[in-house]
């Protein structure tokens, strides 16, 4: 009788311990996933910032975003994971700014952040889109 009750206790205790462990790992996984997502988003946004700042120098020098620079910037941003890139609000070659006038470089689009999610007890890699809208202004150093 004594032996039986000990066995029973151990088994039930095991299940409870396992349940606690599973809960722990689940909560930890959710926290870690959120942390990684935010971290990845911050780092990817930083890369996009740096890229846009580089092209702002070209816009300053020319007084507009040339077609070649526009294509190059689009290509760079695509390689960083951006989609649906739009340059609305940017000073383009159709309306160049003379020396001293304010120039604008505006980029909007969606950034695809890779994340892992559990689906039917399988770990799948998916992407979560977040909206990006970056605006930079400076003055034109182009020919007056």
């Amino acid at each position, binding site marked *: *009788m004594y032996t039986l009750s000990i066995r029973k206790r151990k088994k039930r205790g095991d299940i409870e311990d396992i349940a*606690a462990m599973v809960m*722990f790992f689940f909560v930890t996984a959710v*926290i870690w996933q*959120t942390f990684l997502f935010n971290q990845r988003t911050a*780092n990817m946004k930083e890369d996009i910032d740096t890229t846009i700042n580089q092209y702002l120098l070209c816009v300053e020098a020319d007084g507009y975003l040339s077609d070649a620079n526009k294509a190059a910037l689009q290509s760079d941003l695509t390689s960083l994971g951006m989609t649906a890139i739009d340059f609305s609000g940017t000073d383009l070659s159709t309306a160049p700014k003379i*020396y001293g006038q304010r120039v604008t470089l505006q980029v909007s689009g969606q950034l695809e952040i890779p994340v892992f999610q559990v689906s039917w007890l399988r770990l799948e890699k998916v992407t979560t889109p977040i909206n990006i809208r*970056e605006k930079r202004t400076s*003055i034109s150093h182009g020919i007056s």
Partner: protein
Amino acid sequence: MKKQQLIPFKKKKGEFTSFILMFLLVFAFMAVSLFLYKRNTSLILVKKAEESLKAATLAGATIDMDEYGTTGALVINDYAKSYADFKESLKNSMGLNDDFTSSDGIISGGVHVNRYTIYNVSGSTVECITYENDVGTPSIITGSVGSIKTPNNIPVTKSTIYGSVSFQIDGFVKNKSMMGKIFNMDDIFVTKDCCADITQY
């Protein structure tokens, strides 16, 4: 029979302890993750502020071309435009609202322009036009080349723009707490300044 009655009591005690332990572990893990995230975003923000200030300082450098054509001096005569261009560039680069507050939840209280000074060098004379603490009217003083220095102690020999901004990053824990002091997780007060020789652009 007695033994069977004692067993459930022991089991409940064990359960409680293991759940408390799990809860503490989850809490500790969450705290470490939050701290690392906050630290990383703060570092990125400070770097972004530095780059934004550099870009904004250059954005304020509109040389008076008429004066350049007449006297050959590279000076800024439209102070208000220069200051407005600086602020507009800073606002856009740092992703701030019109009132210079931030909606990213990291900066508290907004970004303050402490000082924006245009040093116009013409011959051996330096004219210092200073906007301080977001006041719209500048103070103007004149000195000679060599006697005037920027706030970061650089002697002014060529036309230069100096800009200084400050902001506060919310700490991971509340101000003046023991944890904040030990782990350096208090509010961070950031001051950045930049000096740009405008004759090179």
